[in-house]
């Protein structure tokens, strides 16, 4: 089940990437057209090549829309329905600061029961991640797609409950003992970490965007309980032996436009290539 899911999401990722590839090649071809068009002075080729959009105004004014992306992580939401051991919600948002910079944040809550071979425990808690995204994607005309890298500072406050556990005994003379029930609760746990985020958002229609991001996390602080360990941290996900972790989300966001800014054409030309 876990593996099939992983494959589904991997293939989804692959599809979304190939989608991005397709888009990029499209922009490149269109871009060469526009480049061929702009320097030409003859009015004849201009009218034939360009769309009626640039009918009266000679230099096409490009305006960037500024505002908020507000949305939800679809993966956590859907998982809450099919995985009886998981309930989670993550709200995502970003605000465009400049042409390429976005202030970004995620806030979420998770309730997850992890059933490992030797321990079964439930983690409950909330988290907040704040940081920025840098959009490295050069949009053509009024496209508003984002392929970004970013950083986040994450903080989580949570509690853990050890449900059952097994004793590891190298000598199996008396046989493997059944799992023991604990019920021990560890409260007041916190952790903080840094995330490197690689993500993308593609406009599907109107102001609705579909996004995907993967995250590489590194713990800064981790308040461990005595007698147990933080094997799962809300927002950070599964912890490994070191302080490294990974995560991802699959978001749908709605863009709330607030104002528009005129893009200087010179800036656009130097940014290309």
């Amino acid at each position: 089940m876990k593996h099939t899911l992983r494959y589904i999401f991997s293939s989804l990722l692959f599809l979304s990437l190939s989608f991005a590839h397709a888009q990029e090649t499209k922009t490149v071809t269109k871009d060469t057209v526009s480049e061929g068009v702009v320097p030409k002075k003859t009015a004849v080729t201009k009218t034939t090549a360009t769309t009626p959009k640039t009918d009266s105004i000679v230099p096409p004014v490009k305006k960037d829309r500024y505002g908020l992306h507000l949305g939800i992580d679809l993966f956590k939401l859907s998982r809450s329905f099919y995985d009886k051991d998981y309930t989670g919600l993550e709200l995502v948002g970003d605000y465009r600061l400049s042409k390429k910079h976005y202030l970004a944040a995620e806030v979420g809550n998770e309730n997850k029961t992890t059933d490992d071979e030797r321990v079964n425990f439930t983690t409950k808690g909330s988290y907040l991640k704040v940081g920025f995204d840098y959009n490295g994607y050069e949009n053509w005309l009024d496209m508003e797609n984002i392929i970004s890298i970013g950083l986040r500072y994450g903080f989580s406050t949570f509690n853990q409950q050890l449900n059952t556990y097994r004793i590891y005994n190298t000598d199996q003379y008396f046989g493997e003992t059944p799992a023991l029930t604990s019920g021990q609760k560890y409260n007041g746990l916190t952790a903080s970490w840094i995330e490197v985020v690689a993500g993308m958002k593609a406009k599907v229609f109107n102001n609705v965007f579909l996004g995907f991001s993967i995250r590489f996390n590194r713990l800064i602080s981790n308040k461990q309980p005595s007698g147990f360990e933080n094997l799962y941290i809300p927002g950070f996900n599964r912890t490994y032996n070191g302080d490294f972790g990974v995560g991802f989300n699959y978001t749908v966001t709605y863009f709330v436009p607030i104002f528009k800014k005129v893009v200087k054409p010179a800036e656009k030309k130097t940014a290309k290539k």
Partner: protein
Amino acid sequence: MKKILLLLFVLSFSFSSCEKDDICDANTVTTPRLVITFYDYNNASAEKNVTNLSIFGDGMEEAVTYNGSTLFNGSTVSIPLKVDADMTTFHFILNYGNANTALVNEDIIQFNYERENIFVSRACGFKTNFLLDPTTPFVHSDAATPDLKWMQYVVVTNSNITNENETHLAIYF
């Protein structure tokens, strides 16, 4: 940009493949066994080898396997204590299986202890450490069919059983 995307794609796949690393490392200190060392009763400082000693847990059909053998020859042996009870009884049979039944001798030791379960890691789970009872750490008795005790003197050298690096029980014979 295409290269970055390709890198992300490869990374995301490599991470999904290397997640299953949940194997408890053999070098990890987990539930310890009870380490017994045999000494010469007439020369207390010298270790003495036992011959064809078999150790049976009470009610068990097979003897404890130590170093791949159920017949033990040597001066140090480790035996497992029950992790789901505060008491384990063992039958120590010297010269086990010997045709000359006069040489075969059985002694019984019942160990009394407290247990503490301690978290080790995700892969290993928990381990159990034992603390031999301070007042009655063990009860030494002869076999059901009396054949005189072959153990002359039994003493606890370390009641706190947390690893197998030291001797917990010394048996003089």
